[in-house]
């Protein structure tokens, strides 16, 4: 059968299928009335991991983004217009992330995409945002995200793997750890912390005994735990998220091992969820580090107040997303444009300046309108931006869990 005949064949698409498909198309087309670029609210997108491996953090991101948007809108919005948040689920997975990002960009006409927890999703949508001129702010930490020419459209609101890995080394040295082993989950972020940690720790005179990597969602982690803990290192750096950390900490405890566990703040801190998962006995003595605001952060308190959480709650991804939205709003106001290629470049000038620090987004917005000099001191950390889009000048909190509560031991810079 020649090709053209197949195409021309009138029964190529049976009628009822055309019907079903057109219903689906109609559903797709009946999307929210598309706001023109010049009036109505300014749409910003949040691409959050509501399902999949990032699932435990997705809600936190959405809540933080809504809080930030509310604060900005209560303070009069940007350029006299309201912000409107459009949330999409990336399923912690690049293909879904790309489809969702395309929907946000092409259908919802957002000017920026925030959230973006998974480094893989960030890497996958980066070519699209660069092509379409949309701003991308991510909390993924794989170093590759900020590599290359990003047209000042890609900004990372997260420590990168390198500085976090070094942070762990410093915490261990401070705690007098002489030998350490590594258990690392196979993700771009967790892996990116390993080499810097090894390097810094060995240079400081420590010894790395062994390294084992593992997959997410394994039926059991007993073999991995046996391999790593049986050599009795002083400390074990567990580079993983909360699910795997919980399973590993439990396994190490009931296998009778004593090595101290070092973990990421978003795993071991995570608002007490880790302690809830494993119980205070198992969590006892687990050390974690996390980039923190220097001293007391106004922005962070404002964030906690807005979402109704008590002072002292630690929600790092939320705080980072809060900063993303606030900075996006400030940048739009400052550039007097909703065009990301114009306002994207304003990110460094909003935080790097040599001016009084402001933490309350409403005040910062007011200062901008009045033309007063200031710099924004973030909720997640009092960061600066490097030219490539990475945050610098981060300090890390050094926490330990005692009787089910996280205690701040000190700060590492």
């Amino acid at each position, binding site marked *: 059968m020649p090709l053209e005949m*197949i195409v021309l064949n009138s029964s190529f698409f*049976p009628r*009822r299928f055309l019907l*079903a498909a057109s219903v*689906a198309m109609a559903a797709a087309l009946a999307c929210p009335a598309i706001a023109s670029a010049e009036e109505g609210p300014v749409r910003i997108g949040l691409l959050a991991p509501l399902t999949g491996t990032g699932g435990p953090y997705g809600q936190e991101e959405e809540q933080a983004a809504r809080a930030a948007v509310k604060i900005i809108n209560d303070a009069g919005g940007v350029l006299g217009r309201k912000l409107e948040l459009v949330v999409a689920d990336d399923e912690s997975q690049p293909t879904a992330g790309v*489809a969702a990002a395309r929907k946000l960009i092409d259908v919802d006409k957002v000017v920026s995409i925030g959230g973006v927890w998974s480094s893989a999703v960030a890497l996958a949508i980066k070519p699209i945002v660069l092509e379409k001129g949309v701003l991308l702010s991510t909390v993924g930490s794989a170093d590759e995200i900020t590599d290359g020419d990003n047209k000042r459209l890609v900004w990372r609101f997260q420590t990168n793997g390198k500085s976090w890995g070094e942070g762990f080394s410093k915490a261990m040295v401070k705690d007098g750890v002489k030998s350490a082993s590594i258990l690392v989950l196979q993700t771009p972020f967790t*892996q990116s912390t390993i080499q810097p940690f090894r390097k810094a720790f060995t240079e400081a005179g420590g010894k790395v005994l062994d390294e084992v990597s593992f997959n997410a969602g394994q039926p059991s982690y007993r073999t991995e735990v046996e391999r790593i803990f049986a050599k009795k290192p002083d400390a074990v750096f567990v580079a993983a998220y909360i699910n795997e950390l919980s399973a590993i900490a439990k396994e190490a405890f009931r296998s009778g091992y004593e090595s101290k566990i070092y973990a990421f703040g978003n795993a071991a801190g995570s608002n007490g969820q880790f302690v809830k998962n494993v119980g205070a006995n198992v969590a006892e003595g687990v050390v974690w580090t996390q980039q923190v605001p220097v001293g007391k952060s106004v922005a962070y308190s404002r964030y906690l107040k807005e979402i109704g959480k008590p002072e002292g709650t630690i929600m790092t991804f939320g705080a980072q997303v809060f900063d993303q939205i606030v900075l996006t709003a400030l940048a739009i106001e400052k550039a007097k444009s909703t065009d990301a290629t114009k306002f994207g470049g304003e990110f460094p000038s909003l935080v790097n300046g040599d001016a009084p620090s402001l933490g309350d987004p409403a005040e910062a917005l007011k200062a901008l309108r009045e033309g007063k000099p200031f710099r924004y001191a973030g909720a997640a950390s009092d960061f600066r931006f490097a030219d490539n889009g990475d945050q610098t000048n981060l300090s890390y909190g050094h926490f330990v869990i005692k009787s089910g509560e996280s205690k701040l031991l000190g700060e590492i810079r």
Partner: protein
Amino acid sequence: MTAYLIATLTVVAIAALVGLALNLQWGMGGLVNFGLFGFYMLGAYIAGLLTVQGAPPLVALAVAMIGVAALSAVSALISVRLSEDYLAIVTLGFAECLRLVISYEGWLTRGMLGVTGIERPFQNLWPRGFADIGFLAIALFAVLIVYATLQGLARSPFGRLVRATRDDPGVVEALGKSVLNVRVRVFAVGGAILGLAGGLHAFYYTYIDPTQFGPIITAYAFMAVVVGGRGSNRGVLVSAFTLIFLLEGSRFLVDYVHGLGASELAAIRLFIVGVGLVVLLIFKPDGFGREPRSTLAAKSSSSL
């Protein structure tokens, strides 16, 4: 919106290729390939990695097709002389292991970081802003070629032999034909199509990593074939189109349905896929399409 439709249509084209491949293997040949996503992933990786190494995209695509076809044939050899249950679990095991190897052998595959900056075929041919339409055209062209080939195959004597093998291997064996041979060839041809689909996936996203490939791809493919009607290539085309648009449509649901979070909606969506599969198998075993048969085949099957 147009850009979004173009992107979605490209996804439809890739899904249609996957559906057509499964329709050949399972619909026509009766061979259950639960590890379909693994072969698809392999295609994507071969095409992606070769392109990044500087091979012309079309050459990379051809190598992907040949490579996946070869591996499909091998995995079929291991198990097709046993019953279908074994083939299903062997392919599933193969796919899961392949994903592990790709995740860990970073020196070769860049591990969990994934392969970035994959170049599309004829990337520089299109005027600025038309790259996506250009790629869609390539994808649709691939679908057309595969569709025409499979239609031809279905009507050929080999197609008749494949269906006969599915319906009653004993009879085929009695006629002196090698069932093993038929099955290995069916699996290899299906594998080549999966390699093509995987390669197009790599080109479309320009970035691949192991998390993009999972058993859910297999589930969607089975859904497409069951809805389209086992053996009906045209049905599979239409059902792939419908399925992707419904799935994409559910993305818009979040904007309207309040009180249900995205994770609940995702669960409902997949629940419907699962239940739909069973319900269709029970009540509409032939799906909505019809298997193409030459008049000769119709005659021979009625005389059996």
